[in-house]
């Protein structure tokens, strides 16, 4: 059995606002393996985003642990996040947005390595000719691609995506879903396999993308179901088996 790139153990989180305690996560445990796409589903406000933010090191942990291959401990995991809205820096062009993480002290690489890596990523996401463009000059899909490239630039073991395609039109969304699979395959081929954790509201998107689907219960969230999606790729959304799994997932996500 492969070693997991991410192990989440009995994770708990309670927010305190105005002396009111709000329990968000209650004992979440799961593992993610290199090169796998793991979709996380659940009703709105059940704590999916909080879970991702904790893995990204943006939220503190009340109890339990998050450990990654690179950092065996409870510290911030070597995980890079792609936000719901691209969150690109509008004052940097596409090239400088992608290389942003590589210019900070923690992930610093030599200039020529950074240049090469950004060039490869631009090629991977098909934005080479838009390298000097600023975010306001790009379409929503292009911006989200650049945000994915920015996360990939630091060679993370885990990519966290918080409803990355929810603001996009259906055609762009399908295009980017295929691109995620392609990027995952490319990263594995290059010897930097990434686990992709993707939060989505859309059962079809989950079944289309995922190797496994985690369904969270209502708040306080615990794991309600875990589904293995063993469908061959490329998947067809009209396929009989596809539809069956989609129904199963839809049934598990309580409204």
């Amino acid at each position, binding site marked *: 059995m492969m070693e997991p790139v991410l192990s989440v153990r009995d994770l708990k989180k309670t927010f305190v606002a105005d002396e009111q305690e709000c329990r968000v996560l209650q004992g979440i445990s799961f593992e993610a393996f290199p090169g796998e796409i793991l979709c996380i589903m659940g009703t709105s406000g059940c704590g999916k985003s909080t879970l991702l*933010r904790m893995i*990204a*090191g*943006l939220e503190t942990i009340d109890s339990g642990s998050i450990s990654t291959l690179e950092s065996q401990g409870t510290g*911030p995991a070597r*995980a*890079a*996040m792609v*936000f719901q*809205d691209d*969150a690109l*820096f*509008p*004052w*940097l062009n596409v090239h400088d947005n992608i290389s*942003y*993480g590589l*210019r*900070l*002290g*923690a*992930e610093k690489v030599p200039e020529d390595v950074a240049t090469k890596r950004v060039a490869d990523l631009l090629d991977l996401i098909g934005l080479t000719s838009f390298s000097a463009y*600023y*975010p*306001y*000059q790009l379409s929503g899909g292009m911006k989200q691609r650049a945000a994915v490239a*920015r996360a990939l630039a*630091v060679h993370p073991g885990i990519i966290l995506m918080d409803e990355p395609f929810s603001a996009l039109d259906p055609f762009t969304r399908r295009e980017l879903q295929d691109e995620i699979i392609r990027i995952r395959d490319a990263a594995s081929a290059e010897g930097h396999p990434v686990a992709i954790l993707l939060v989505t509201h859309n059962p079809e998107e989950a079944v289309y993308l995922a190797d496994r689907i985690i369904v969270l219960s209502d708040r306080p969230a615990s794991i309600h179901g875990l589904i293995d999606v063993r469908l061959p790729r490329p998947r067809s959304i009209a396929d009989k088996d596809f539809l069956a799994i989609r129904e199963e997932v839809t049934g598990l996500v309580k409204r």
Partner: protein
Amino acid sequence: MEPKKKHSISNIAKGLVVIVLFLIIWEVAAIIINNNYILPRLGDILLVLAHPFASVLGGSSLAQNALVSLREVLTGFLCAVAVAVPLGLLIGTSKEVDSYLNYFTQMIRPVPPIAWMPFAIAWFGLGFTSIIFIIFMGAFFPILINTIDGVHGVRSQWTDVARMFRSTSFERVRTVIVPGALPVIWTGLRVAFAVAWMCVVAAEMLPGTSAGLGFMIMYAYNLGQLQVIGAGMVIIGIIGLGADMLFRAGQTKFFHWQGRG
């Protein structure tokens, strides 16, 4: 590009129409009143403006006085930038510092800069340093307030991105907070420069000064030379307009990434 250019040319024309109209009304009124001590003729004002390097009323030339004022404004303005921007970044990023300083700054802010003059003279004596202090007080708050607003306007997702890449807090300020807040800070600088320019003229009008456009205006007033006052006001207006245009040009050049026209 073409339609935009036409648009701006017609805008300049519209602006000129109002200026010309104002000048005509002024001149007609001056002819009717026919009293140089109430309303000088445009021709007399232009005569002063036409000789910017000639001695005015036996003193420094128009250009020399303008340079003195400009030097004072720049000194006071740059001092204000050097203090207000870092302080604004600190207040904007730290709720703790904000709660200590909020009421204090809100209380000093409404005091007109020129009201500090007696204290300024008591502390720094007559002349350059006191004027610099007045300008500093005038320019300080627009810069401070806009820097704080600018920092508050930085989207939390941008700082999240920086934190996710394990940035230090200094890196976050340098790579996210400052560039994100800069357009608003720039607006603060623009407003502050206009205030500073008003302050210098007012401060120079007070007793004990011996140079600058404000001094020249007061000196001409004492000698009843209203055409010199008019010329001084034109120069003040032109320099103010010029500075504002420079700031606007800087805005389009540096902050085009905001994606507005």
